[in-house]
């Protein structure tokens, strides 16, 4: 499975270069932020109506801005310095920008990792079987793969969501149900269709890589030897072919997590996500007020960029340490 050589390679490249360390620190921080979101958030991220006296959204603390305040019964434009309970201000419907930023990490990570896992569970067995047996099964798979790849991932996702709706799945928040964070939402909506669609869009890449591995491994001496002892195909696949294909699949999975996080953000931006607690959705919401309240769109974008950078840095680390032959061509979707 994961040999000593691989672990020592991983350890060595981690020690020797700075980038994997940065990626690791970033990703761990973002995961912690997502897990403990109810404790870190200062306000309920879904609660609206946090406005200043003039009925305007708060800018980030310390910003000087103009608002209307009633002085002696008369509305006046005044220059004030923002000083509210909202560290990073509020958005156009008066929600706390910082709290929504913290919660947004949950959607990105959950969709990114669960869709990739699903795609792996579907794609790897299909690819292994196709590559191992070859012939018609293999031909059929490759044609299906070509067809899937002829759809731009985003377009395919949009078409599927058009058919199946958005179906958000409400997952109870463990921290809130333990009573650790009062006043925070009791459950968060995971975009159900988006997750499944994302998996549907990328499983082909896993099938292709697994197929390639199985194709080259089936002629290896040890596989032939195992078969000559009477080992069944199923046991050869699970016992020999799968463990030897793990490395490229892990590298591919890391790249795909980054791809999916970007895909989810794009779908949410276009309004097809099914949850409003997503960084992509928040960017869209800030678009109309970009000129007057640029912070609303800016912050969630930084969240996406940092998360994807973290995943990409770890992906580069895996690739350099595990499989120098895997190339950028698999940055699919």
């Amino acid at each position: 499975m994961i040999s000593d050589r691989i672990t020592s390679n991983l350890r060595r490249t981690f020690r020797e270069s700075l980038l994997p360390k940065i990626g690791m620190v970033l990703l761990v921080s973002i995961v912690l932020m997502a897990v403990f979101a109810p404790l870190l958030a200062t306000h309920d991220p879904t609660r609206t109506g946090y406005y200043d006296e003039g009925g305007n959204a708060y800018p980030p603390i310390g910003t000087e801005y103009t608002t209307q305040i009633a002085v002696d019964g008369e509305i006046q434009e005044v220059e004030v310095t923002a000083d509210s309970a909202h560290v990073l201000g509020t958005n156009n419907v008066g929600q706390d920008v910082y709290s929504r930023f913290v919660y947004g990490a949950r959607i990105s990570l959950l969709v990114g990792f669960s869709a990739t896992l699903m795609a792996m569970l579907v794609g790897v067995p299909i690819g292994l079987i196709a590559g191992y047996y070859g012939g018609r099964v293999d031909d059929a798979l490759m044609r299906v793969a070509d067809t899937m790849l002829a759809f731009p991932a985003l377009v395919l996702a949009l078409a599927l969501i058009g058919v199946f709706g958005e179906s958000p799945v409400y997952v109870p928040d463990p921290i809130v149900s333990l009573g650790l964070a009062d006043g925070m939402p009791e459950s968060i909506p995971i975009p159900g269709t988006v997750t499944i669609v994302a998996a549907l869009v990328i499983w082909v890449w896993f099938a292709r890589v697994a197929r390639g591995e199985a194709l080259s491994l089936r002629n290896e001496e040890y596989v032939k030897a195992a078969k000559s002892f009477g080992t069944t195909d199923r046991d050869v696949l699970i016992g020999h072919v799968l463990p030897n294909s793990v490395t490229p699949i892990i590298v591919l999975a890391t790249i795909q997590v980054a791809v999916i996080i970007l895909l989810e953000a794009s779908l949410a931006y276009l309004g097809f996500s099914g949850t409003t607690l997503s960084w992509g959705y928040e960017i869209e919401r800030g678009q109309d007020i970009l000129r007057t309240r640029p912070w609303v769109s800016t912050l969630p974008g930084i969240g996406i960029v940092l998360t994807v950078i973290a995943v990409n840095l770890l992906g580069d680390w895996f690739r350099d340490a595990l499989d120098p032959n895997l190339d950028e061509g698999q940055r699919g979707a």
Partner: protein
Amino acid sequence: MSIAKFLVRRTLQAVFVVWGVVTIMFGLRAVSPGDPATLMLGEGATAETIARVRAQEGLDEPIYVQYLDYVQGLLIGDFGYSWRSNREVEAMVIERIPATLELAIAATVVALVIAIPLGVVSATRRNEPADYGATLFSLLGISTPNFWLGLMLILLFGVWLGIFPTGRRPVGLVEAIWTLVAFGSAGDLLTWLQHITLPALTLGTYFTALITRLTRSGMVDELGKPYVTATRAKGLPAVLVRYKHVLRNTMIPILTVLGLQMGTLMGGAVITETVFNWPGLGLRLIDALDARDWPLMQGIIVFIAVAFVTINVFVDALYSSLDPRVNDE
């Protein structure tokens, strides 16, 4: 295998892929909720009108008859009528092609012009400041969602600096060139250039980053090969070796990836067009989706699939002329 035979085989595969896309789209439409006649006529339509439209559109036929009708129509270039506007889908697709094509080409030009020199510099000056800069740039480029990048460019260049317009396409490239040739006025061309700059940068950044990475890693591999040492020992100047031999060999895998990434480019175009209100196919696709206008949606997606596989057949042909070994398979 000769090039001709290779191309015939690839073309047949391409036809199969397009058929697959057509069939999947038809299947999706068949299982999608909502009665087409009601979608076409709106909620207020009477049962009679709905029944008449159903009969007219062949919606009462068995599903396989509808499928055969649809495929037959596509073969003679009849994509059906938009449910929303009742116009011919093929006309609605064709009129939007120039805008998207301009955007895609501009983005590819941006990507190639920046990425290849950057990748070469990065590979030949490994572990120097220039290499770190290029690596950081490409990491940022592949990690930034393009709609957000677009908004940030609008904020920076449109709102704060006021250098570029932030949306729309008041004039097409062909008309702009026509005014230049016929009337000697470059004004339209300038307007076009101003309007396409931010969208092209938005769409092109991901590719710039990707190609920079590919060029760098490809060059690093190639530079370590014995023939490089041999040609250098023979006395050929480093620059000549680098650009004539090494870069050429590096371009082969880059081309393949570029072909495969056309799908990403189309997806990116959908987003970019939405951000900048750029009237291309992508924006029309989003409108069609919002309105559940299936014939239009299908038409656009089938068109994209045809474009994608055609480009890839061309890429394969180019590939086989760059690398003769491909034909020996």
